[in-house]
């Protein structure tokens, strides 16, 4: 017993030594390779940006040291990065409608827990970006999943228009200037790897717009020299439905002695979404959206640093038009149920990081959504409420001049009020993930 305890303690000590040994942090894909800087220069923990990295990004991937234009690179330099995450994961859903007798659809259904596990690979992110010339930057990010591919981002940006860093214009498909970047989340699991608030719409709601996901449009942005003050405004179109949405974000930072940089800001996303479509033979025609009705998401956020700890706090208030919330075409108002109203909700999350050193970071996240008004009185008051939490760590054993490799372990769990398909009880899903996240 004693021997086992000692061995266990020894193993823990070894792990601790391996995890926390402070080594020079260096790494690199495309940009670091171009400038010879370590990845830790731009990332507090890869892929999350620190203020230097955010400034570099806001400068149009330019350091401003007179060597940004591609003419200064070796001709064989190719600004490309691959990101892949081979992993083992286990997903469970506590309440799935299953046949009482497997394979017999007429045996009736019950709710049962279903779990699946195994090795997997993520999609492959291919990212190429940089400068086409002084003050013209670009990014192209194809995305390859099993059997399919798409363009996740593709844009060109004209930087420092009128010789001021306060005017930069980006056009294409891009990630919104989100308060906390979805693309740079440290969490990867199916249940905990995304910010639900960014994508949420109430159950039954037909609005598909949200803060999350990369969007088509044009963005005007600007920032101060040290990036403490930032703004962005974007005009977005929801192709193929041809409605226009608007997004704005403002961030201000300040230094607190002995604590570090503190950021806070506010954002607003508003627009319209179609409630029905022109059809041909009964099938919706692409681009034929009609009966547009409004929605909005507004909120505030803060990023607070206390030494090696940092906390991301995010608040959102959302509301959709009554027709969107009840999935009723706007040309059929009589179809609205009695007492119908535009659904409204509040949500937020707090995500904490403890960066022991550039090679090791602990992560914890808690996210919630609470409905404040349902689309009609027939919907139970808490349907759509969500609680999600995730914990994990990332350890970066390799950060060499051409690549970065992280070992990732995380566990996440979500509780969805009233989501059980048969009983209407609360449903829980969970995800356990361990794997390698690498970038080269």
């Amino acid at each position, binding site marked *: 017993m004693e021997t086992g305890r000692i061995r266990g303690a020894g193993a823990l000590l070894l792990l601790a030594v391996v995890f926390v040994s*402070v*080594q*020079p*942090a*260096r790494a690199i894909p495309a940009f670091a390779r171009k*400038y*010879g*800087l*370590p990845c*830790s*220069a731009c990332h507090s923990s890869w892929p999350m940006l620190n*203020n*230097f990295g*955010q*400034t570099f990004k806001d400068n149009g991937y330019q*350091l*401003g*040291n*007179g*060597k940004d234009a591609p003419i200064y690179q070796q001709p064989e330099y190719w600004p490309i990065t691959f990101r892949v995450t081979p992993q083992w994961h286990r997903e469970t859903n506590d309440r799935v409608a299953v046949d009482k007798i497997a394979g017999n659809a007429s045996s009736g259904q019950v709710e049962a827990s279903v779990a699946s596990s195994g090795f997997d690979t993520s999609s492959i992110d291919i990212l190429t970006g940089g400068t086409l010339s002084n003050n013209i930057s670009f990014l192209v990010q194809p995305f390859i999943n099993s059997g399919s591919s798409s363009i996740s981002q593709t844009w060109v940006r004209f930087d420092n228009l009128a010789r001021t860093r306060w005017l930069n214009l980006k056009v294409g498909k891009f990630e919104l200037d989100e308060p906390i970047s979805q693309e740079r989340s440290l969490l990867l699991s199916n249940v905990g790897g995304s910010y639900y608030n960014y994508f949420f719409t109430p159950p039954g709601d037909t609005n598909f717009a949200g803060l999350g996901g990369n969007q088509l449009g044009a963005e005007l942005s600007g920032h101060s*020299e*040290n*990036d403490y003050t930032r703004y962005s405004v974007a005009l977005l179109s929801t192709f193929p439905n041809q409605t226009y949405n608007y997004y704005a974000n403002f961030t201000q930072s300040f*230094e607190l*002695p002995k604590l*570090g*940089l503190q950021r806070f800001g506010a954002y607003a996303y508003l627009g319209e979404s179609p409630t029905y479509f022109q059809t041909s033979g009964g099938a919706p025609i692409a681009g034929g959206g009609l009966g547009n009705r409004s929605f909005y998401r507004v909120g505030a956020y803060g990023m607070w640093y206390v030494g090696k700890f940092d906390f991301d706090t995010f608040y959102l208030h959302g509301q959709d038009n009554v027709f969107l919330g009840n999935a009723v075409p706007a040309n059929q108002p009589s179809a609205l149920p009695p007492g119908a109203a535009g659904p409204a909700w509040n949500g937020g999350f707090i995500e904490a990081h403890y960066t022991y*050193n*550039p090679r090791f970071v602990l992560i914890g996240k808690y996210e919630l959504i609470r409905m404040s008004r349902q689309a009609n009185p027939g919907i139970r008051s808490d349907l759509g409420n969500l609680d999600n939490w995730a914990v994990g760590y990332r350890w970066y054993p390799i950060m060499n*001049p051409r690549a970065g490799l992280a070992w990732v372990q995380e566990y996440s769990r979500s509780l969805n009020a009233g989501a059980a398909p048969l009983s209407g009880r609360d449903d829980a899903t969970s995800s356990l993930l361990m794997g390698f996240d690498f970038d080269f």
Partner: protein
Amino acid sequence: MRMMADMIAHKMSVTVAFIILASGLSSHAQESHVGSLVGNAKHGKALYQRYCIFCHGPEGDGNGESAPYLDPKPRDFTKATFKCRSTPSGDLPLDSDLYDTITRGVHASGMPSWRPLLRQERADLVAYIKTFSPRFQEEPPVAPVQIPPEPPTSAESVKRGSQLFQSMNCGLCHGKEGRGNGPSAATLTDTRGYPIRPFDLTSGTRLKCGDSDSGIFRDLTTGLDGTPMPSFASALKPDQIWDLVHYIATLRAAAKLADRR
């Protein structure tokens, strides 16, 4: 008996004074002072490992992993020889000089501006950079060079500056028209033996140590240690240095005008 007590007291006081002096020097070497900021070398070390080590190397000797691919080469901190200083040629820089270089970056080199770092962090980095050379412990800080008030720019001043540019042989390195293509340009090396190119004063790009007229005056006065650019402090009077500054300003202004067109 009393003599012995005096001797012991004297030895003790000397010992205490030495300890205080030594600890004072030691703690000074571990600190930087920039305005009201006091940089801490221990904190600076962690920042150095995050931001600087890949170019400047773990020993601060400029031999980081990226160094072979960089031109110009990263600074060797162990030599304590710095281009951008407010102190006379050959002297150590002030803490504020190092802080300003970190903040501003060094144009046309691999060294970016680190202004996005906190002011305290930049002061901490200065404190750590100073630990690479014993000179910072051994040599007391020296006073910065004096920069007299700038006289008004005039055609006469520019003309005198142009004549000085020729008579002081600036053109040997910087070229007759200041384009960085003088007859010696191709043969120049820094003190580590690496080839170095004279600055093209007509390029309109930022100067390495700051763009203001007073900054150019300071550079002409202090020289850029570690490079072939000498100090003109003893060769020229302050008024003459201002004339030279005004002439250089015209070269740069012409380039900026052409760039805007």
